[in-house]
């Protein structure tokens, strides 16, 4: 009976949507919906009721109005590379793909901005800006595929965020639609706009507050000189100490990445970057700017690394060697992926000074769960990416990996950090939100959501847990005695 109701809803909604969109842009068949069933976190899957592929803002507006009137949930999707299940479809809802919004509208060299549609990929912007000697700084590893709409919705970062900031620091303006169909422009080509900073609020809002229909980005001049140092360490605490010393010396590297032994070995086997495979950890430090500045900083960083106990420091001799140093880091995820049938990528941020301690605790948990972990992360800003290796075909192992991951995030909160630095909460970390925020704060989050989307139709069930869910999660956790500090409502 429910099945037929579901089908009837689908047919009626599809008919209405086909009055807005060409028939081929309204997908209802299982095999057509399959490509949308998950994002980069494939452990969570669901087929949407319908998927739509609009091409104009007016079409999106009409779709939202239709869904608003009929109380149909809407989930936006860019490229589906998200790692927290943010674009996971709603079974009773419309999956709104922005893939056809793939045009770069303007590169304004005089004002150093790019205005793009939300489905444009991250890398395409820097490619289009290159003729002007400009680039778009945030560079998630997924940059060949991920979209600017997704970047805004997740406030994505990348290797170069240490110096150049996250998406929120590099977006000057957006155009968006609310679920009620209101079209809004926030910011523009100027450095600020009037009123509340709604632009900041939209960043990292995971498709819960509005649909981004246009993005204006800040472009930067390409630095003329880039240098990379590779340092090997006999222990992780020594590598952590080196990070603190570089930052403490007043140097802001363009990137400062750490790989532990399992990940650097995996990377070495995979791309033969020439990494010292016996090292407990390596640090990659990229410096950029004017030639004189980079030359001076390279010498200072070399000295700091040696003073911090590096067993070896290499300075890339040319562009080719620099590319080789990075090749291993860039291939780290797929390389680690070869070590086990599956891996689960975590994304907590901690104060830098707690690095060594947190990595030790993760290692202890790894033994407890019997699941190996490889660490490769943005050391410069304390953003950890432990990769938990497991085999989904072994019964119970996915659940074990998820539980292990959850405990890592709880450690991050306990030491004054956060459960997500750049991948978002999505569906995945919804329970850990209960650890980081207390009931009052969650209540304000829900109220804020309501200000943008009174009926709660945009991406429901993601990012912010209900208080009810938290109560259940809390009870379960305390019962199992696993929450490290159950008395701590938040940090």
């Amino acid at each position, binding site marked *: 009976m429910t099945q037929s109701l579901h089908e009837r809803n689908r047919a009626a909604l599809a008919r209405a949507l086909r009055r807005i969109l060409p028939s081929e842009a309204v997908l209802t068949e299982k095999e057509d919906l399959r490509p949308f069933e998950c994002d980069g976190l494939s452990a969570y899957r669901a087929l949407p009721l319908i998927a739509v592929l609009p091409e104009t803002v007016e079409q999106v507006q009409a779709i939202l109005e239709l869904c608003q009137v009929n109380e149909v949930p809407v989930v936006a999707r860019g490229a589906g590379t998200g790692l927290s299940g943010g674009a996971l479809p709603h079974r009773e809802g419309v999956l709104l793909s922005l893939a056809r919004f793939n045009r770069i509208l303007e590169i*304004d*060299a*005089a*004002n*150093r*901005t790019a205005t793009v549609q939300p489905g444009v990929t991250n890398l395409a912007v820097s490619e289009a800006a290159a003729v002007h000697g400009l680039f778009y700084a945030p560079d998630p590893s997924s940059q060949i595929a991920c979209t600017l709409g997704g970047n805004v919705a997740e*406030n994505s*970062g990348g290797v170069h*965020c*240490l110096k150049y*900031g996250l998406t*929120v*620091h590099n977006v000057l303006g957006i155009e968006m639609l*609310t679920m009620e169909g209101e079209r809004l422009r926030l910011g*523009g*080509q*100027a450095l*600020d706009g*009037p*009123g*509340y*900073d*709604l632009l900041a*609020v939209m960043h*990292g*809002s995971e498709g819960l*507050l509005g649909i981004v229909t246009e993005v204006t980005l800040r472009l*930067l*001049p390409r630095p003329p000189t880039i240098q990379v140092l590779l340092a090997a360490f006999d222990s992780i605490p020594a590598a952590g100490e080196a990070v603190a010393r570089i930052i403490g010396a*007043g140097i*802001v590297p363009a990137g400062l990445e750490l790989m532990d032994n399992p990940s650097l070995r995996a990377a070495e086997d995979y791309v033969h970057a020439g990494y010292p495979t016996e090292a407990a950890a390596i640090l990659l430090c990229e410096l950029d*700017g*004017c030639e*004189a*500045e980079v030359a*001076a900083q390279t010498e200072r960083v070399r000295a700091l690394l040696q003073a911090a106990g590096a067993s070896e420091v290499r300075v890339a001799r040319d562009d080719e060697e620099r590319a080789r140093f990075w090749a291993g880091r860039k291939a780290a995820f797929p390389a680690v992926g070869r070590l086990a049938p599956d891996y689960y990528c975590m994304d907590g*941020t*901690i104060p*830098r*000074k707690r690095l060594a301690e947190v990595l030790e605790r993760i290692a202890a948990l790894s033994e407890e769960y019997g699941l190996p972990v490889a660490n490769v992360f*943005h050391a410069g*800003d*304390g*953003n950890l990416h432990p990769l938990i290796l497991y085999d989904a075909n072994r019964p119970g192992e996915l659940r074990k990996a998820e539980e292990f991951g959850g405990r890592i995030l709880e450690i991050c909160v306990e030491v*004054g*950090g*956060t459960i997500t*630095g*750049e991948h978002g*909460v999505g569906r995945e970390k919804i329970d850990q939100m209960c650890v980081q*925020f207390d009931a009052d*704060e969650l209540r*304000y*989050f829900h*109220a*804020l959501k309501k*200000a943008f989307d009174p009926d709660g139709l945009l991406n429901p069930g993601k*990012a*912010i847990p209900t208080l009810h869910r938290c109560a259940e999660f809390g009870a379960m956790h305390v019962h199992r005695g696993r929450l490290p500090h159950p008395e701590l409502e*938040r940090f």
Partner: protein
Amino acid sequence: MDADQRDALQARVREAMEAHTPLCLTGSGSKAFLGNPVRGEPLSLAGHRGILSYEPTELVVTARAGTPLAELEAVLAAEGQHLPFEPPRFGPGATLGGTVASGLCGPRRPWSGSVRDHVLGVTVLTGKGDILHFGGEVMKNVAGYDVARLMCGAFGTLGILLDISLKVLPRAEASETRVLECAADAALDTLRRLGGESLPLTGAAHVDGCLYLRLEGSEATVAETARRLGGETLDEADSFWTALREQTHPFFAGEAPLWRLSLPPAAPLPVHDEPLLLDWGGAQRWLRSFRPADAIRAGAEALGGHATAFRQRPQDVDAFHPLPMAARQLHLRLKEVFDPQGLFNYGCLYPDL
């Protein structure tokens, strides 16, 4: 002198809720001239002060909102660090809270980022008497909506800032300012050209027929770039940039209304022959003009920006650029979330906020 007044402030807000007393939030009053007039019982936030944590190698400082900016900046300077957005004080007692609430930035803003770009977390007391914490002390954090940044530039209308965590950065080793004599249109051309190059630029202003370019970085880089740019070295450069930031430069004296225009940096110059100072490489322009507010605002809007009536605001002119309907609606709903009774700085930003 440092004191934790959060309980007292919470109690005061609860009283105000009970009695429906609107409150006029003040730090030191240094920026009281900004925005529209507020009626309400004064509530001083200056007593809630003190630095709570500061670790130079973490590049993070957390302080109570009443902490004087001068005190905070001195503590950072002792470690060779600073607030990169170079906030104006507009008075000796300026507090951190007022700085974040007004969201104002100095000449370095286009290169360093704004106040909100450096706010990592806040503890806030809402108009419902709740004390909440958003964000944290780490560089990257996407858990929950970014309420911390929403508070920046909200002029207290969404809540009383109690504690604030900021990202700080090392100060540059060397600084030099070059002065190039040129008219404003030539200055804009130069800035457009320089904007495409990777330079250690941290200030670019044009006033009285001179373009001022501040360079900061290592000794070698600054010296080399200065040579390349030409012009003259400015003696006492610090006092020039301070006068610009604090609006004690002679341009800011006199009776004509002072307008702040926030525009795309390469936007063309106005045709009117009125005193104009370019800051932020052209993205922030100060205009002295008696022309009607509507005309000035329409002009700014046509160029893709907005206009604030900053000082000597004519009667019956709203301080801030009017919002389109849909944005206004969202503002009202957000006010309803954080301060439903309209207790805090009611009317300061916009009439019913």
